[in-house]
């Protein structure tokens, strides 16, 4: 079922300098984005960061204060939602609660005046693909959550939109079922090769679903990249902190150059790293203070690191709290009055109060400019 323009991945949607202000409050600021046919983009950010407002502007339910939206090369700012060919699945599904599932699915076709038999055929085969055949004449309000979600997606697909938008559809589904529906959605997207924009505040959901993730915060774009890049090379302090669970450790350190090494002092503990390991030029290191970021998974036990051929200054710390999550354990380490989180595989068993020595994997260290939070390394 490829799209009409054949396999070359033409540009489907372009946002240029999109801006939205609600009486003084800037909800979305200068957003530029280009989305290719068949891509699955996630808008990720805390609540109130403007991701839903952007979605609603694309759907035509909100009018931008400034900036243009191009869909398949055509400017759609002035078009009303009905004419945009954009489908939107709402957070609480917005089904027509007083209608049966069949009428919900057929709504888009009935108002286009599609003939009865044609409508019936389309609805039946979509219902079969979404396992809704047995529910066709049940009232929408009596469905369980996962059925509601499937009806909402199927109903939107039946209008054959160019672009499919999701506004946190899995928000109120309990964990366990949520992972299953997430995998289903990902499989559906690959199968239908539909372009989708998926809004969520759950970083795990964005990492697992998105081909690319647009991380937003307070109306501004923090980073636009693949999940791997965002995880391994966060561009700002916000992205580094928001992505990854447990979140990254941040340490305010003073640094000084010592010949080939840079030594960082952090609450009485100093560790130095070969300059060659940090591919960062001198000139970037303005000022005295630097914020060093290291993910809990990248703090290794000193002896284990030795075996792996990674050499660095060992830090000795006391085990304060252990979170046995099965495959891995999250350990809170206390050194002086500072806390650092570390993840270790479950073979090693520690008790509260043990003293262990660990090292920061130099290849995974991130340096942030304390003033504007932008990344240096």
């Amino acid at each position, binding site marked *: *079922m490829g799209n*009409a323009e054949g396999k070359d991945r033409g540009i489907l949607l372009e946002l240029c300098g999109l801006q939205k202000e609600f009486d003084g409050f800037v909800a979305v600021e200068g957003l530029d984005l280009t989305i290719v046919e068949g891509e699955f983009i996630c808008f990720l950010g805390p609540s109130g960061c403007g991701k839903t407002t952007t979605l609603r502007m694309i759907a035509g339910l909100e009018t931008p204060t400034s900036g243009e939206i191009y869909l398949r090369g055509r400017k759609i700012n*002035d078009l*009303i939602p*009905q*004419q945009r*060919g954009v489908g939107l699945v709402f957070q609480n599904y917005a089904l027509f609660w007083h209608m049966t599932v069949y009428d919900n699915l057929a709504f888009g076709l009935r*108002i*286009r*005046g*599609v003939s009865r038999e044609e409508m019936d055929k*389309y609805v039946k085969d*979509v219902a079969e693909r979404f396992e809704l055949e047995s529910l066709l004449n049940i009232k929408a309000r009596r469905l369980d959550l996962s059925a509601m979600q499937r009806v909402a997606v199927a109903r939107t*697909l039946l209008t*054959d939109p160019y672009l499919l938008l999701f506004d946190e559809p899995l928000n109120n589904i309990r964990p366990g079922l949520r992972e299953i529906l997430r995998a289903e959605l990902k499989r559906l997207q690959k199968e*239908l090769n539909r372009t989708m924009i998926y809004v969520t505040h759950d970083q795990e959901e964005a990492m697992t679903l998105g081909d690319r993730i647009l991380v937003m915060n307070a109306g501004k774009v923090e980073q636009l990249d693949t999940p791997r890049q965002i995880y391994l090379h966060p561009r700002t302090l916000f992205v580094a902190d928001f992505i990854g669970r447990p979140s990254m450790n941040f340490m305010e350190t003073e640094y000084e150059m010592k010949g080939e090494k840079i030594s960082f002092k952090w609450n009485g503990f100093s560790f130095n790293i070969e300059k060659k390991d940090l591919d960062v030029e001198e000139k970037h290191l303005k000022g005295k203070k630097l914020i060093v970021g290291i993910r809990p998974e990248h703090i290794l036990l000193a002896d284990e690191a030795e075996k792996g051929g990674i050499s660095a200054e060992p830090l000795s710390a006391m085990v304060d709290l252990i979170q046995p999550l099965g495959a891995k354990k999250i350990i809170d380490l206390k050194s002086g009055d500072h806390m650092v989180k570390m993840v270790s595989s479950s073979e090693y068993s520690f008790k509260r109060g043990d003293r262990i020595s660990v090292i920061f994997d130099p290849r995974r260290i991130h340096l942030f400019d304390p003033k504007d939070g932008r990344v240096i390394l």
Partner: protein
Amino acid sequence: MRERSSGRVSAQVALPKRRRWLRWGAHWLIVLVVLLFFAMPVVWLLSVSFKPPQEWQAFPPTVIPRGPTLNNYLLLVNPELPKGSASYMLRVTEPVTKSFINSLIIVPIATLISAMVGFLAAYGVSRYRVGGDFMPFFVLTTRMFPPVAFAVPLLVYYQNLRLIDTRLGMIIIYAGFTVAFSLWMMKGFIDAVPRSVEEAAILDGASRWRVLFTITLPLVKGGLAATALFVFILNWTEFLYALIFTSTRSITVPVQLSHYVGAVGRFYGPQAALGVIASIPAVIFGYLIQRHLVTGFSFGLIRK
């Protein structure tokens, strides 16, 4: 999945400038007509209440009285105007002050009783479903019966208890027949208070009465006030029971107005003046609780 459908939605270009202006004009015309229809009757009442006798039925009718006068209002308070005054009024039956005093005693007390009884019963119904689900329905029907049907047995009953033409008698009637409204409105407000807050207080060691008065009541204060005001309006404007159960000593304002219209004949000025005064309390309280009027009148079934 089927291919892109040919039947695209008919392109509906945004409304052209001219059509939008026309719709705007029609819209404002309707608003004006509706405003006139609703405002005009009361404006006429007010204007008549300030007109001297010769202007009451003057033709052509004028909204602003040519010679405005306060006589009509003064006449209500002391019926014997000094001899030289312009009006050659027959002696008016009796000063209106008596009926206002009666109303200002009967209605507030009845409202208080109705609100408190309604609050306690609403708490019982909301938290413990006391009386099963029949209780709310039963209380509702007391409101739906035509009052005159109840008045028949009550008259006989009141005669035996010598409650006819007494303020106490009227207070009991007004409290009893508005308790349905209080119960329903208060139930809505009490349902809004989460049960867990009360359970937390019980676990902290508070007795059930203490929870009711120190936790639930403060949280529904606003609702109780709205309910009381709403019941006040119902009682202040009630006419039939007052007409039947009072004769001279404890007549209320609406009954006084009905006597006035009958007895005084074509003296429309003072009648209009009494109409204006009778409406003032109800309208003021009405606007105070404008938000809750919907909940009240619809027995809490529709919430603003």
